[in-house]
């Protein structure tokens, strides 16, 4: 129990904090004022994860955590890295929300409760090593995010986005659940390690051994099991791909992103994505990516992800090109960014050793995923934050036209937005450059030069629409008489922007160090994921 609380500290903090927030919200006389405590809660969770970082390097602690979690959750540096990313994304978006909701007269306490529980769900999803836990985490975060999407109750758009997200999300969750059920049916395990090991073993059928046709029977059983497993894997991939908004499961994103209040959009774009990619990392690489076993690459999921990655990049970028709303452009570009991350996934199962990086090709690719998530979190929160700051009630900055001439009206906001947009476009020395660079590098190392080329070409397309934001702000004047965005004044958002800008710059200035942390996280994740059940008892043997 004590161990459980210790190793789960980030999640525990968020849950207890969430309940406290509920009570405070229920009993306080006036709405509002919860943003800063919620953000602090997230930052406390991040700090807790940071404090646990050394423990995660310690074998004794890892073993104790494994016993305490009973195989449901992983306590390792991958989890902690993702926890930090999630908590950071959640905390920063909460700070944005504080000013945004007040400005737009949406201030209601449940926003903070929802976001806190959703963050806890994200952490559960990111750390899950059991399909049931994975599903619980997914649902916890999803329910919170559905509600956040529909938070503007009076806006039909918001309601529509939320409903669509909910319906399709349920569909996707059903796919995931169906895949999980099939995996359980085929292996008798819900824990990932158990599934992996069961898939590695041949089907046993001792009861009929020696009977006529028994060998044939076993062969058929084997065939059925492997075929069903492969299809189950596809279902699981589809369920998770929905959450990251990858093509062809992306259709909900523009509606939901546009309908949601902007801080919630930022939250969906960064935090939910981080959690879902974390789960993908565990399921695909942990279960199906073990190159040493016969279950490796079950049916070529890398081949599948190549398509998802390329399609996501291409469609995300091309449709983003055509948008006239900046918010919608950011939504589509987040699909494209998902594609870049998926490109790193494709090469992740390589175990060949890598020149100079200190890990295998696969580890460096997985580290590239983690680094990208962190980079995308800070850059994107900043971009959304600047977009929020650029508008005020009734004069929101939504379309490119709203931004025209902002460079003259409010140079500081324009500068901030330009900076984050440059990072998203991948310009050095911002972190966006190194995030993409790592992905491209791992693709080349793993022998997928054309995939690297696809990333490069798509980044170039991306530069076009990102730069358009800057062109609008600095080189165009607003149409006479048009409604134009009036920047609001908000110390909270300004502070958030300064903090994120600092992080974008710091990560860009010391990419090696942070990439090193990511690599360390991945390497130390290898231990629990690869731990054979021979030395650790199967967690929930039925």
């Amino acid at each position, binding site marked *: 129990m004590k161990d459980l609380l210790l190793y789960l500290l980030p999640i525990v903090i968020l849950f207890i904090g969430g309940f406290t927030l509920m009570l405070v919200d229920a009993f306080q006389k006036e709405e509002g004022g919860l943003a800063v405590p919620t953000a602090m809660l997230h930052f406390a969770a991040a700090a807790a994860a940071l404090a646990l970082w050394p423990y995660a390097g310690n074998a004794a602690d890892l073993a104790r955590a494994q016993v305490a979690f009973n195989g449901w959750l992983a306590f390792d540096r991958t989890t902690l890295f993702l926890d930090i990313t999630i908590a950071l994304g959640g905390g920063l978006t909460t700070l944005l929300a504080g000013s945004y909701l007040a400005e737009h007269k949406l201030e209601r306490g449940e926003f903070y409760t929802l976001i806190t529980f959703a963050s806890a769900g994200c952490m559960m999803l990111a750390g899950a090593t059991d399909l049931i836990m994975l599903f619980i985490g997914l649902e916890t975060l999803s329910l919170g995010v559905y509600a956040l999407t529909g938070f503007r109750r009076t806006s039909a758009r918001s309601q529509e986005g939320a409903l669509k997200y909910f319906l399709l999300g349920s569909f996707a969750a059903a796919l995931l659940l169906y895949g999980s059920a099939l995996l359980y049916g085929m292996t008798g395990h819900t824990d990932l390690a158990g599934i992996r090991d069961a898939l590695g073993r041949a089907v046993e059928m001792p009861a009929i051994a020696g009977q006529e046709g028994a060998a044939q*029977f076993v062969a058929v059983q084997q*065939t059925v099991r492997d075929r069903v497993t492969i299809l189950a894997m596809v279902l699981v991939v589809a369920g998770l791909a929905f959450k990251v908004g990858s093509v062809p499961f992306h259709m909900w994103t523009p509606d939901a992103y546009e309908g949601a209040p902007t801080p919630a959009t930022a939250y969906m774009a960064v935090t939910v994505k981080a959690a879902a990619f974390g789960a993908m990392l565990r399921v695909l690489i942990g279960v199906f990516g073990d190159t040493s076993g016969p279950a490796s690459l079950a049916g070529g999921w890398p081949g599948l992800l190549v398509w998802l990655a390329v399609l996501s990049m291409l469609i995300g970028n091309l449709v983003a090109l055509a948008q006239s709303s900046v918010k919608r452009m950011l939504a589509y570009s987040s699909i494209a960014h998902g594609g870049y991350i998926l490109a790193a996934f494709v090469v992740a199962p390589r175990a060949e050793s890598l020149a100079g990086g200190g890990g295998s090709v696969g580890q460096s690719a997985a580290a590239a995923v983690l680094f990208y998530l962190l980079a995308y979190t800070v850059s994107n929160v900043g971009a959304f934050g600047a977009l929020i700051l650029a508008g005020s009630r009734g004069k929101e900055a939504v379309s490119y036209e709203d931004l025209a001439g902002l460079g003259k009206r409010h140079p500081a906001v324009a500068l901030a937005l330009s900076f984050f947009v440059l990072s998203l476009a991948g310009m050095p020395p911002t972190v966006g450059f190194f995030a993409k660079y790592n992905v491209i590098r791992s693709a080349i190392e793993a022998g997928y030069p054309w995939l690297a080329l696809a990333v490069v070409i798509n980044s170039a397309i991306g530069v076009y629409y990102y730069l358009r934001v800057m062109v609008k702000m600095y080189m165009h004047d607003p149409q006479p008489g048009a409604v134009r965005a009036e920047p609001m004044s908000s110390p909270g958002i300004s502070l958030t922007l300064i903090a994120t800008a600092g992080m974008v710059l710091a990560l860009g200035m010391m990419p090696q160090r942070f990439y090193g942390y990511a690599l360390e996280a991945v390497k130390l994740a290898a231990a629990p994921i690869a731990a054979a059940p021979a030395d650790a008892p199967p967690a929930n043997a039925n």
Partner: protein
Amino acid sequence: MQLVPTLIQALTAVDTAGSLSLRYQYGPIFAMLGFALVVAGAVFSLATFLGPKNPTPEKLIPYESGSPTTGAKHVRLSVKFYLTALLFVVFDIEAVFLYPWAALYQSLGWQGFVEMFVFLAALSIALIYCWKKGALEWET
């Protein structure tokens, strides 16, 4: 009708003679399935073919306690019903969860006790929240 067996056939077909497994393991299930389909089909078709058919307008209108039907088919219900239903579901599940806990109370020991109370506390907070927010009040 042939869809499910065909699918399963497709799923299990191998180079070697694979029909063995179908007979061997899934045979009873398919037999059961076939039996159920036959019986259900038979009952319905018998009723359709053998039963006397003598429709009149009065017989075809929806039956509503003898009085004529009014209004549209889709009635909008107050959202309050849903709220109440949701709360009911939550506490329903709580009750379902409490039964096995109570049955195993002895063997779970203190840890089980604490865990259940954490669960109950969480639900209580939710209840308090709903209460304070006015979700339990019908007239607002």
